[in-house]
């Protein structure tokens, strides 16, 4: 383990899943990221917090390959995302990334099971195999009984569980969560937090962007605080669960 000048620990290179070096992102005159450096080790759960407009979501988009930096490099699982074209980025996401969102982003026209199976089917997995794996995941997440229900008829917590199941479908190296409890009531939020903790405990690497200190402290082992497009502070959190 390396130690930074401010005393925070730095992950070893051998275990690095995410590595951002000098990442800048500008939207016109506005700087969303301003020379951001960040590393995340395998199995870590990292929470990113900060005021609105500090660049949290932009950071997440960079890591997911949803957006490109103006300058700097983004490496995930040892892969430099810079040279990848749109096709390459799509394949990268398919292989390495799972994403959950504040508003779930489920497809209204598909029932829960098919929403989850979709991620595997895009890789060429047969419908039967994909549905079998999707059902296993829904079962593990406690919503198998709702597999045939369309998103509009699911509760917020159920929708987010289905979204988590979909994110895990392709066994991603990194699970990205953007305000995963932001649209949920407190009980559903608790359930989702427990779920994330459980996933991390079985070795799933997590990067969570949130405004909610409770979520950050409960689910993450390291907290990255951002301001003005940079990492303002990092600290290791005590496990609270």
């Amino acid at each position: 383990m390396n130690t930074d000048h401010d005393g925070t620990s730095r992950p070893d290179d051998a275990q690095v899943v995410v590595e951002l070096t000098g990442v800048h992102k500008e939207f016109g005159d506005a700087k969303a990221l301003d020379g951001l450096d960040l590393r995340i080790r395998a199995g870590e759960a990292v929470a990113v917090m900060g005021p609105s407009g500090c660049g949290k979501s932009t950071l997440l988009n960079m890591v997911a390959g949803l957006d490109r930096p103006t300058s700097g490099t983004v490496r995930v699982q040892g892969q430099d995302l810079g040279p990848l074209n749109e096709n390459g980025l799509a394949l990268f996401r398919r292989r390495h990334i799972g994403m959950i969102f504040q508003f779930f982003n489920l497809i209204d026209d598909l029932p829960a099971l098919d929403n989850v199976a979709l991620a595997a089917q895009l890789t060429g997995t047969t419908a039967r195999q994909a549905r079998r794996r999707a059902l296993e995941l829904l079962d593990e997440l406690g919503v198998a009984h709702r597999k045939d229900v369309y998103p509009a008829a699911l509760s917020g917590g159920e929708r987010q569980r289905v979204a988590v199941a979909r994110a895990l479908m392709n066994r991603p190296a990194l699970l990205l969560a953007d305000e995963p409890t932001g649209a949920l009531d407190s009980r559903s939020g608790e359930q989702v937090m427990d779920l994330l903790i459980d996933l991390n405990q079985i070795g799933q690497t997590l990067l969570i962007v949130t405004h909610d200190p409770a979520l950050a402290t409960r689910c993450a082992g390291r907290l990255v605080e951002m301001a003005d497009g940079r990492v303002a502070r990092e600290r290791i959190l005590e496990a609270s669960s």
Partner: protein
Amino acid sequence: MKGVKGVKGVKGANGAVWRASRAAVKRRRVQTVVIGLVVFCSTTTVLLALAVISAARAPFDDAFAQQRGAHVVAAFDPAKASAEQLAATAHRPGVEAAAGPFDQAVVEIPTDWVGRPPGALTLVGRSDPAGPVDRVRLLGGRWAAGPGEVVVNEPFGGFSERFLNHPLPLGDGRQLTIVGFATSMSQSAGGWVTPEQAAALHPTGRQMLYRFSDASGEQRLTSAMGTVTEGLPKDALTNAQSYLVLKEAFSAGADAYLPLMTVFGVLGLVVAALIVGNVVSGAVVSGYRHIGVLKSIGFTPRQVVTVYLTMVSVPAVAGTVLGTAAGWAAAHPILQAAFSGITTGIAVIEPAGWLPAATLISVPLLVLLAALVPASRAHRLSAAQAISAGSAPRNGRGLKIQRRLGGTRLPRAVSLGLGQPFARPARTALTMSAIMLGVLTVTVTTGLGSTLTRLVDHADGRTHIKVLTAHFAGDATTEPRLTPAQTEAMLRATPGAERVSVRGLVQVGLVGYPQPAFADFYSGDDAVDTKRLQVVRGRPATGPNEIEAGPSFIRQHGLKLGDRLTLDLDGRHLTVTLVGEESEGNPRAFASNDATRAALTDDPHAVEYDVRLAEGADPEAYQRAVSAADPSLSPSVFAPDMGGPIVAVISFATIFTVLLSVVAALGVFNTLLLTIRERRRDLGMLKSIGMTPRQVVTMTLASVTWQGAVSAAIGVPAGILAHRLLVENVGSIVFPESAMDVWDVPLLIGLALAGVGIAVLGALVPARSAARLPIAEVLHNE
């Protein structure tokens, strides 16, 4: 004060409605452009169709009324009805006005005259062009006032100044002088002389011109003529030319286009209504949240409807104005093409002045009507419903189908795409209707093109050489070195010739009819002549005293197969039988054979030779040899000549097909754009879980490809049916079955692909824009 406040309130509300409408137009630029383009194309189509339809009748009626045209131009045998008896017919019941009797003589013109071929000319003795009936319009010069003077009828309404005071030699050695040119909408004569001059020309008939109080149909005219001729000796009436025949002849050219224009005009309107309905309903559906917001901030339902109608009206009005301007600009040349070569007289062929007003009023109304149904949905929708639209629980057949597709072995991008249209069945139905109409149009046009090509296609796989005489080629100064018989022998003897046919052309008089006709006499190996038209009813005129003619000639002369006609050339009369109806042809021409020609005249009147070359023969060498043998001959390799009307029909059809296909593709484009806008979040999510840009394009194209295929499955048979109806109702052309049955498997497959093509064409841009959708932006803009 209260009143002032009220007015201010109304003004403020109107301002808000206008601001909201303007913002909606600005925000939906693509949709605005699509509506504008659809309306533009449709307006152009409708205006062109209306222009031809109105021009086919109105100009004739106006000019005919202006000249107080004769409803019937009657010719009587002077031996059977005296001038007094005929004069008395003017007072018979039903006769509104009458002129005559005038002496009528048929003279022979042995040489070319004022640009016309030699032949018979009917002259009528009239002291002046005025009178109660058939007020002949003097185009130039003056009316015949003395012996030897003649005024020539110029049926096309124009004349050349240089022919005034030109001599007109007659076959019997006498000579007349052309002192004027005139035109008669009644086509009552080939020329007019003084009554004294007519008497000196040994008249064979007496002409009476009648206007009847009821001339509304052929039956009424026949009955009126029955009353007129009552008491006259049997067979005293030798011919009665109805104005209805002239009216039909006037619109003969346009008649070929009328069914076509009507079909395309109706198609244009239907497609425009469908697409506009689709576009507007899409705008309302995709604007539910917008509607909810408007209502929640205090817009009344009526104001919301006004916003949506205004949003549609802006591009609709712009499209209508531009479409009207484009249609108006194109209408002039199109009418010129449609009416080229027909007897116009003083009728002016131009687009009717009311056309722009009609499209400027009716098209926006149609658009508003199409917009009203979806806009009324916006009216009914509660603010809460509108704002929550999209997140309400959904189920139904569409979703079940999507689920079933998800379980198939198809790639997921494909199965997702195939299922998408079921989510919005009404919109899918409208889009498919647009594609279906596009396919129908393409099918009709393709069929028409094939039919017309087959009609004129004499291709026997051989090279044909056309050899024109100097005279026929327009060179009156070069004297031929060989006689017609020698020319034919030379052509046969020149190395390379396999078969030779000869075409003789002469103008002959038709006894009982005021206008002469052109007779084509074919001899030699006439079966190979590329000029000869196909006989579609009866049989080819191969025997002596037999003729064949096109439908226009037959109709305008009131004939049917088996009827007899008496030809008059150089005073020699020959009665011939109409044995065949050709597929098309000049309304003033018929065809026959050399035996018939020989019975009428010794001169073969050869104007053109058709030589089929032997396989491998050198066309260049053959032409050189012919020119060397007689430099007055003009040989050239025959190129299939698509007649003017045929080219025009194909051109119109192509223009309309392009317009309507563009409109149909725009419909698909718009639907997909709306769908993509609605599904932005879904697309972003799919991309976030690894759907590649190519898979996004595949999914989008899959969603329209099957719609294209299904639309084609309906559109192609409908197009085949429409094609059959069209070709069976083109008045001036009778198509043989071989020309109507043009469909074969590769062509049908090609047409089916046209449906997919239209759909894919409209989908490509939205598909690519979907593939490029910025995921981060979409997913975080909730």
